[in-house]
């Protein structure tokens, strides 16, 4: 694997940030699998890559503040792309789209106050259109039950939007009342605020809120509309193990569960906070996005460059599971194509020679023999061809084994096998037949 000879260079290459992110994303959370197979993975690849690239820039080691800022934006835009570009989501979730322009997204990320309707809890879908997938991107609001950021808290509703999102996400239907609830309740905007009563029942994965200026993932304070973050009236002085550390007036510090929040955060860190919050608090409901983000984070924070490189190298090896799968698909598809071409040519031969009264001629048997021989040749070359194809794909894709695999899985059925089957048409006989004579 010559193209893996210099792992260091490979890891330091700009493209690796994307690849590593994608690889880690996939490895950490099985995001692509969660997308319904490799085929879907490629479909979402552009957005995911951008998202992860941004994440890598933001969270990776030795990153400057600017890198992190632009990485975060990139990540956001990746998320934007992820959904903006796609039309069909896995799990029959329906259609997602219509999130505005990049400018809008950027604006909403950086200036959330201008968008009162902004909420990560808002399902990123056009309710009423049969869609139901939550989105990482800001929602322009409008047709769904808007969850505003300025309403009073409902402390006894720990995951105010989760249920609806579950129903929407799975069924793709418009909001339906939960069992036991009324239509009015179901359609009423429900919000919580960080300034409300403590709701320590946020459960595992309860998200920290935004940390202006702080490093994402290491939130320092909870940003709220009221100024300094507090939980239960006690100021938050830090975080540890997913819990907030609050300090009472006597200076004693306590661990406290971070309450559920949906208030708009400030700045980039707020954005990621919401991402993390959303993904962690709705691991199933958010499905893909949660998995992606979760996996991304797990991967980026939990794996070293060496781990990623080793895994990438392993997976790009022709003996890897991905390569095996790629080659299997390649050969299967190619064999199917060869068989199809063979049958087509055979049918054409039969038809033409039959029409010509030449079915019992040596010309026909010779043509058939050539055809059969070509098919055998092509079939016998498939293992080698698939290996070559894998190497080519892996090389072309370069930095990302997973991207390569995903691409290959999708591309294999679409590869142009004409160069292979062209052999069938090389004989003068077939050419003359093709000429319709």
């Amino acid at each position, binding site marked *: 694997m010559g193209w893996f000879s210099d792992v260091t260079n490979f890891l330091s290459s700009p493209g690796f940030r994307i690849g590593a992110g994608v690889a880690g994303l996939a490895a950490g959370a099985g995001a692509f699998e969660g997308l319904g197979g490799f085929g879907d993975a490629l479909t979402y690849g552009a957005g995911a890559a951008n998202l992860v690239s941004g994440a890598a820039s933001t969270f990776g080691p030795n990153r400057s503040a600017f890198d992190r800022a632009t990485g975060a934006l990139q990540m956001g835009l990746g998320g934007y792309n992820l959904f903006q570009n796609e039309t069909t989501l896995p799990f029959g979730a329906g259609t997602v789209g219509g999130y505005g322009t990049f400018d809008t997204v950027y604006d909403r990320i950086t200036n959330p106050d201008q968008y009162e309707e902004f909420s990560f809890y808002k399902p990123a879908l056009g309710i009423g259109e049969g869609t139901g997938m939550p989105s990482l991107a800001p929602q322009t609001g409008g047709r769904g039950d808007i969850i505003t950021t300025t309403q009073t808290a409902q402390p006894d509703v720990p995951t105010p939007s989760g249920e609806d999102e579950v129903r929407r996400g799975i069924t793709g239907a418009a909001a339906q009342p939960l069992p036991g609830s009324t239509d009015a309740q179901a359609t009423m905007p429900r919000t919580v605020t960080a300034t409300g009563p403590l709701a320590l029942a946020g459960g595992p994965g309860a998200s920290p809120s935004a940390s202006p200026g702080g490093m994402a993932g290491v939130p320092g304070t909870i940003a709220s509309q009221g100024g300094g973050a507090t939980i239960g009236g006690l100021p938050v002085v830090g975080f540890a193990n997913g819990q907030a550390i609050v300090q009472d007036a006597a200076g004693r510090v306590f661990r406290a569960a971070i309450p559920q929040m949906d208030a708009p955060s400030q700045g980039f860190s707020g954005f990621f906070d919401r991402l993390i919050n959303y993904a962690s608090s709705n691991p199933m409901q958010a499905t893909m996005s949660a998995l992606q983000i979760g996996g991304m984070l797990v991967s980026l924070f939990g794996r070293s460059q060496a781990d990623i490189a080793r895994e990438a190298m392993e997976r790009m090896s022709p003996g890897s599971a991905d390569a095996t799968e790629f080659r299997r698909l390649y050969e299967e598809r190619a064999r199917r194509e060869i068989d199809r071409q063979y049958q087509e040519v055979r049918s054409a031969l039969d038809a033409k020679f039959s029409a010509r*009264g030449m079915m019992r001629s040596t010309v026909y048997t010779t043509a058939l023999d050539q055809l059969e021989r070509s098919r055998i040749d092509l079939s016998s070359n498939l293992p080698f061809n698939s290996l070559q194809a894998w190497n080519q794909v892996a090389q072309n894709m370069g930095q990302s084994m997973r991207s390569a695999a995903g691409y290959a899985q999708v591309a294999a059925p679409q590869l142009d096998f004409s160069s292979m089957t062209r052999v069938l048409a090389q004989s003068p006989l077939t050419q003359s037949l093709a000429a319709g004579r």
Partner: protein
Amino acid sequence: MVEKLYPYNRFVGLDAIADRRQMGERFLEICEHAFVDLRGQINKLPGYKIKPGLTTQNVMYCENFGNNVVLYGQHNAGTIDLKVYSAGTTVATGWAWGSNLDWCQFLASEYVFLDGQPPYGWDGTAWSSKTVMFPAAIRGPCAANVLSRLCVAGYAPTRTEIAVSKAGLADFTVAGSGAGDAARINIIDDLTGKDEIVGLGTFEGNKLAIFCRNETLLFVADPNIANWALLRDFRVPIGTVGKRTIKRVGNDLFFASKFGVHSIRRAVNGVTLESITFSRVIQDIYARCIENLHATWEPRSVWDPDKGQYHLYMPQIGDYWGRFTFTIEPSGRQPHLSWGFTPNAGIADATYFNGILSLAVPSVGLCDDDHRQETDTSKMRVRTAVLYQGAPQRRKNYKRLLVRASGDAKFRVRAYNEDRDLIDDDVMSNYPDNDGSLYTPERPIDVPFEHFAYGVQLEFESEDKGDLRIMDFALVAEV
């Protein structure tokens, strides 16, 4: 009673399906050793004369090989010797006398085919047995060349297969898939029934006509063997009775079947092909010949473009040869089609090249047709239909016979009444010179013809050497 002249001219030819008393007056009941030309005049066919330098031999096969070079088969102790006229080069084939040979020219060589035997080839200098060129599997009885390929067919056991040589090469080796490669084509699936190939011909230069016993197919040839194609929309539901009856006649392809003489030709519209039958008018005679066909010998034929005649030689039981002479002038709005039939013409085969019609006469040898050869005893006999001169039920008092004729052969005229009773055995006996010789007649022959009859049949007969043409005649009768 008023004397009235009744002229008869513009004859058509033999009519073998109508009763002599009811057929058209321009038709002939008998037309032996004669033909009616496109002007409607009755002509005596030429006799034959052995070619210079040859002695009398039993010759039954012949085929031209260029100008005044004729290949022929001569009897030799029950077998066939192939010889070359006039070089005399001979090869003893060992083939049984009477075998049905086929001839085909290919790449400047003449090949002689016999079923199951390696063909012989004459390359212009020597005979040779083509055992290598023709492997045992493809030693068929019939052959044709088309688009620089030699085709052989009818070989056992696959008698529906055609072996096609390489383009421009005397090589039947099937190898590769190039355009010019050799091939085998089996048409068994395209035949409507159990059949076998018995003859091959070339039509329009690019079509291979495949004659089976019961049907005929056409293959459109192509320089690329892979592009050969059976003509699906054209099929003649008639086979051939002899591979040597297949002759190119202009752009048409004539052949004889058990039902008659047919032509494959392009229709007037220029797009489609058609097959027509010419021999309806002689159906009865033709059928009798087929019934009496020789057990092993096959009919042969020759096309004489000078005279526009297709001669069909029919071997009969008893080892003699009948001959149908089909005179055709296809041009014009009313194409002239005329039949004659000679029960025992004595000619087994013929070949034409450059104005020379060479004949294989078993009793004489390889001959030329010649009006003036001394030994010609061929008897011309032409009998008209019953001529009534008006109402058939009214009896006529005939007065005179006028004949316009030319040539130097003596002839006689017999007369029969409507019941074919002979009423005058030699009308010409009263002719002044009493020899019937009318080489350059200045005026019609006018002889007394005083008979009572409801109708008369005239029979013109000539056994003399020389040519003879009966242009027309007339009867003067009181009606």
